[in-house]
């Protein structure tokens, strides 16, 4: 039954609250829509800016190993295949210039190499540490260690970059020698050349430390500014992330699950492997989040390795990741539409890749922990 008084009270409420009520709703709605627009803006702007490169190279961009921002001069050759020289200046004569060419393979392979090394290092250590935190460390010690790990996840990447550039890089590179950490603890510096010296005699490992130059096999110089060091720094950077998330996942395993395995006579490690198996999808998600972070990292890679896009199998050669190519070459590309377009297409690939990683990871970790969004 609707009475007159009902309608009246509605009117009164509406008159009193007319401003706050729809205003808050509209503001909240607009903010929510804005989040959708942010992703749309990313995709649209990058796609539009990448247009010159997409138009020019098409799908070739994804399979080409070239990355040449400048025209490549091709020399005029005589019938013997020798360069012809100008009789007056004795300079080699340029026949024509190959136009600039861009391909993503060099940057993608650099990203894959550095992230791969990072995960090789970080995953076993992080899972071991997470198990240690959940199963071994006494309860009173967990909060300080957890705080330490979360704090380390919050340290800016430029700090790791600086450390990698001036401390780890010089330790890894250069000739084998002994240094003292803080003037006290002896440290075998020149690790790369030590390892290279050992590997060079092992059959099947030569490609790691040697390369072909003009038909001859020469050792790759150990500079300490290479894929290996960048990968190690990325590994150190993602360790706190993977550890924190997998600790939360392992901690949320029902106690009965663990107690059940022990009651059946499992040893400590057997019950641990059961825990890992039980939560494997969540742990896999944690690893993918670490991978996404490593693959998208810019500053640390740029500082440790620089950006020289080339394709090389050896982790001792310098390379570039997609992110470091972007940061390293963007300033000089501002006036060159094609170069800028190629960088934008790299950014687009990087964006799509990170979207895929994050979608997969959130799907796997979803509901298991809210920390995933806070840490990574």
């Amino acid at each position, binding site marked *: 039954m609707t009475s007159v008084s009902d309608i009246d009270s509605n009117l009164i409420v509406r008159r009193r609250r007319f401003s*706050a*009520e729809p*205003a808050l709703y509209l503001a*909240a709605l*607009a*903010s*929510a*829509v*804005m*989040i*959708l627009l*942010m992703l749309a803006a*990313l995709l649209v*702007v*990058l796609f539009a800016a990448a247009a010159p490169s997409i138009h020019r190279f098409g799908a070739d961009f994804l399979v080409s190993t070239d990355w040449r921002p400048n025209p490549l001069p091709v020399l005029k050759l005589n019938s013997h295949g020798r360069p012809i020289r100008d009789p007056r200046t004795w300079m080699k004569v340029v026949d024509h210039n190959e136009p600039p060419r861009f391909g993503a393979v060099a940057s993608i392979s650099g990203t894959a190499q550095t992230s791969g090394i990072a995960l090789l290092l970080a995953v*076993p*250590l*992080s899972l*071991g*540490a997470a*198990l*240690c*935190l959940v*199963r*071994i460390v006494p309860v009173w010690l967990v909060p300080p260690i957890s*705080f330490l790990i979360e704090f380390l996840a*919050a*340290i*800016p990447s*430029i*700090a*790791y970059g*600086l*450390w990698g*550039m*001036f*401390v780890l890089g010089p330790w890894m590179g250069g000739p084998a020698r002994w240094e003292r950490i803080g003037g006290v603890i002896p440290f075998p510096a020149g690790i790369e050349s030590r390892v290279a010296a050992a590997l060079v005699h092992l059959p099947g490992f030569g490609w790691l430390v040697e390369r072909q130059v003009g038909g001859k096999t020469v050792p790759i110089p150990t500079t300490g500014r290479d894929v290996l060091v960048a990968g190690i720094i990325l590994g150190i950077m993602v*360790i*706190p992330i993977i550890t924190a998330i997998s600790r939360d996942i392992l901690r949320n395993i029902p106690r009965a699950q663990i107690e059940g395995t022990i009651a059946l006579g499992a*040893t400590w*490690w*057997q019950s641990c492997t059961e825990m890992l198996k039980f939560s494997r999808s969540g742990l896999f998600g944690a690893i993918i*989040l670490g991978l996404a972070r490593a693959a*998208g*990292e*810019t*500053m640390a890679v740029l500082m440790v390795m620089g950006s020289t896009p080339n394709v090389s199998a050896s982790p001792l050669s310098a390379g570039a990741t997609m*992110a470091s190519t972007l*940061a390293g070459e*963007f300033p000089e590309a501002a006036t060159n539409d094609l170069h800028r377009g190629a960088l*934008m297409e790299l*950014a687009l690939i990087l*964006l799509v890749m990170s*979207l895929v990683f*994050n979608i997969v*990871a*959130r799907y796997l970790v979803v509901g298991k922990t809210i920390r995933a*969004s*806070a840490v*990574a």
Partner: protein
Amino acid sequence: MTSMQITRSKIASRIMYGVCIACAAIIILTLLLITGYLLVIGLHSLNWRFFVNLPQDNPPGMRNSIEGTIILVALAAAAGIPIGMLAGIYLSEYDANSMLAAPVRFVADVLAGVPSIVVGILGYELLVVPMGTYSGWAGAAALAFIMIPIVARTTEEMLRLVPGSYREASIALGATKAGTILRVVVPTATGSVVTGAMLAIARVAGETAPLLFTAVGSSRLVHNPSEPFPSLTLRIYELSNEPSPETRMQAWSGILVLIALIFLVNLSVRYFTRQRR
């Protein structure tokens, strides 16, 4: 199972027990080594002049960069936190199960993982190119872009923890929806919402990549955000490319100041959450 196998798996278990402890120890030692190094080297050239002098002065300081970072982060927070909170309120309080909420939630999660260099490039294309100059506004906008999804999702999670009975009680007492949200739900969750906001601030304070092509850095004392703007992280990056070791030492001190800022934010978050529990 034979007794042999049992002993073997017992030994394996012992070994793996040790391996797990070793993993934790290696991680903690490595990370302590790095932070210890930053601390010792950074303190070496840190004195009060570092905070009040400009890069051109003698001895050089980072006053402009420290202020620049604080201003940039404040501007980013002024835009990012309200928008992020409102989006969180929408997701938790208004149309939590609507056709719009699920994609917004999903996109916010995904945006939180977008590499920050890509955000910087977006800022360049959308703000620097039209405005014709690098600016603090563009830098702050890029940082706000990073904050919004983080704040939105943490706010949503925290508001969801507020018991439904609070909302019902408030409505039953005649409060409007907006009144319930602003006077009951948000105040109840203030502690944890502030935590989320502070974590987002700590995250963007250390960002370099989004500022590379937006704020771009400056060696002067700039307070006007429509000019190229200094930031601590940009200055550190710039210094790391300096050939002379003495100049480079400043980069370590800059890192130390930056980490100290982030550490303070983290500690205050701890304090805040402890009070509420």
